[in-house]
């Protein structure tokens, strides 16, 4: 079943990470307002495939706003014009018939384009690997209710833990800073009693990796918070800075708390 919206798309096409990219214009016709943005692209891709042209590549998977795969920069906004949703949750009723829509990949040196609209966000994984964990082996954990955590603390930790690692914060930032992403994990673990033993080594390890990956610094513009589909707050960055300064000031005490604890 198709709809009656007709749109013009200007889409970034790039064969691979080495090739030069360019905008290519496509018509998206017979679009229903009940379609998600990705379903609209599916329609375009089906028609390209029928002509044996190569479909537009983009990352996507769960299509319910939680896996963090989809990552389109639409009309100058990561995940498009609406707040607090991912690209897959954006529906075509947000757009007007006849509109021209510009679609780009995330733009950041730390997220190189793999093909068309898909980028390599493995830098995020490497930052998590550097220290985004509590060093506890399987087995031997005490009874879960032996650790009391006030509801407000658990809720706040959850609010930070809800980050989906999509990279919209980086794409939104003029400095391509990853500090919202990094601080969300540091805040989640830093708020919880279980995260205390490695709190200061963790922040140092993760920040060091973040810098190594080539992400920029934070200048408190707040674009990340405005564009984050999960509404992660800028205060996470303040908490991270606070822990980082503490760690640096008292680094002698904490230098040996190597995150990972062999």
């Amino acid at each position, binding site marked *: 079943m198709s709809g009656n919206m007709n749109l013009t798309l200007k889409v970034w096409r790039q064969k691979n990470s080495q090739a030069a990219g360019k905008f290519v214009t496509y018509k998206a016709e017979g679009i229903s307002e009940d379609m998600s943005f990705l379903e609209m692209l599916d329609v375009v891709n089906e028609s*390209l495939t029928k002509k044996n042209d190569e479909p537009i590549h983009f990352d996507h998977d769960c299509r319910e706003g939680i896996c963090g795969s989809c990552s389109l920069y639409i009309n100058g906004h990561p995940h498009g014009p609406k707040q607090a949703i991912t690209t897959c949750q954006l*529906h075509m009723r947000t757009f007007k018939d006849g509109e021209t829509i510009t679609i780009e990949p995330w733009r950041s040196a730390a997220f190189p384009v793999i093909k068309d609209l898909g980028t390599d966000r493995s830098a995020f*994984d490497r930052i998590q690997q550097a220290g985004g964990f509590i060093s506890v082996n399987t087995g031997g954990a005490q009874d*879960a209710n032996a650790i009391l955590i006030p509801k407000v603390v658990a809720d706040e930790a959850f609010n930070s833990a809800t980050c989906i690692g999509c990279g919209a914060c980086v794409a939104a930032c003029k400095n391509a800073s990853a500090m919202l992403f990094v601080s969300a994990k540091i805040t989640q673990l830093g708020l919880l009693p279980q995260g205390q033993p490695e709190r200061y080594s963790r922040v140092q390890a993760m920040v060091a990796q973040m810098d190594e990956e080539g992400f920029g610094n934070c200048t408190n513009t707040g674009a990340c918070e405005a564009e984050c589909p999960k509404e992660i707050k800028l205060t996470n960055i303040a908490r991270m800075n606070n822990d980082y300064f503490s760690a640096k000031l008292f680094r002698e005490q904490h230098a040996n708390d190597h995150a990972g604890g062999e």
Partner: protein
Amino acid sequence: MGLDAKIPQGPLAEKWSKHKFNLKLVNPANKRKYDIIIVGTGLAGASAAASLAELGYNVKSFCFQDSPRRAHSIAAQGGINAAKNYQNDGDSVYRLFYDTIKGGDYRAREGNVYRLAEVSVNIIDQCVAQGVPFAREYGGLLDNRSFGGSQVSRTFYARGQTGQQLLLGAYSALNRQIHLGKVKMYTRTEMLDVVVVDGHAKGIVTRNLKTGEIETHAAHAVLLATGGYGNVFYLSTNAIGSNVTAAWRAHKRGAFFANPCYTQIHPTCIPVTGDHQSKLTLMSESLRNDGRVWAPKTKETAEKLRKKEITASQVKEDERDYFLERKYPSFGNLVPRDVASRNAKEVADEGKGVGATGLAVYLDFAEAIQRLGEDTVRAKYGNLFDMYYQITDENPYKQPMRIYPAVHYTMGGLWVDYNLSTNVPGLYAMGECNFSDHGANRLGASALMQGLSDGYFVIPYTLGDYLATIGPKPVDINHPAFEQTRQDVIAYNNKLLALKGNKTVVEYHRELGHIIWEYCGMARSEEGLKHAKNLIKALKADFWKNAIVTGENDEVNAALERAGRVADFIELGELMITDALDRRESCGGHFRLESQTPEGEALRDDENYAYVAAWEFKGEDQEEVLHKEELIFENVKLSQRSYK
């Protein structure tokens, strides 16, 4: 051939402890001499990779996504069961075991299910230690909610994002092992075949999804944790990328596929709006704690609602039929999923469905909002209400949600014994990709439990026994079987890439989905299934003639990836039909129209069908051969399931 599940002897409650003692161990210094391949990084795969690496094994972990954190476990909403009895409401390991066996309509193994219930308590402890932010009460203790098929509150949750939080916990444990060099992680890498040497699984063949390179990897054991096959229906609540390929290719190398016809249709999903739809979105079962399911009592009222002449709130209380509460007073809205789904279908079939298509019933929160206040309802279910609003453009705080059943989970999967080993030595299956613990219907909040049970607490014990038996001698990657299997994969991909017909792979997938949904969905009949089998055979032949696969191998090529997955789904679809035809009884999610009680409930035939159907692949276009594993019940009495 008889199938030996290797269930340990002895009393139910002692089986697992005794078995753990009897399993051989690998000494700490030898563990580093073993390599283990784990495919998939969802709850089962990530937890297994982390736990085995912590023990000292060398682990290679694979996922097709760009990051292990994106595996589809991330999308599980409602919660995870555990027999903690923190609520003092009568829960116990035995009760969780009993509820699960009964919920599965007596088609699961007692030994497996008891073990699952037993280790459920350790899972919660482990996750909390990792920093998973479960919901808490004001005193700082963990909170619980209720789920279907149970009369106790044993479900732990993190708002409506429990799967995400559990997966990020397992992902963090996995990250720690990557950091320590014990796990080598391969992202954007898809497994396309298993390498079998002298009857033992010794490695896999993969395609690098960035470069197209076809590579071989050797190991002492191969563990699959590659999820379910719900996308055989095209539309499901699964992620677009979720697929059966790893399990199916393993099946074609000798691993038996068990109970493929056991698929779960979840009662509360956002209804389909049109053909453009690429997936369906679940509204968590937890909503049935407070939401009331109803449909109009008369067809006339339903007709007015469909035409939007009236709104749901204008339907008077006495014109509404809260059909689950009416028919099942003890469980009410919290009956198991298969029962709730069939009832919704029945209402729609009677012409009392609502929404533009008539394929929907209401899930109403008005009473809960009045009782608890909008803020409390928002705190409990806010993210689900937002998701509903984004998709439908309707505000569920003001009008009831429209919901309808959709494919959500598959109970069938690779056959495994008590040790999670398939019938191919060295090849294991964990989580949704095996068939083991849910029988013919899975209870809500039990998938997360099973995935983590397999990965954290079962495989670290059972795998050691096999490894100790075969010894630490390095696996020879130069054995000709590796190159031969690699060449097979290359030839198969080339065959796909040569398809330059006139119909897209997505069109074939959609068509397959229509066939399976129509004939092997919520209701199945002998006649329909036979017809469907012919349709699928024809579809397969047509696919290999007229499909279009664009692009080349040596690049990012989503079209090629999808084509391989759809080709496997078509073959699996045929096996599902074969299995559904064989099972001339109704049980759980498998509802044969020929076999129902006078009230229209699923009617089992324990005398003839109390077995696991494990299918053996015999070659392209050959009928698969059935092997039966008899189910033995020593502790529970088989009875007609009743939730009245």
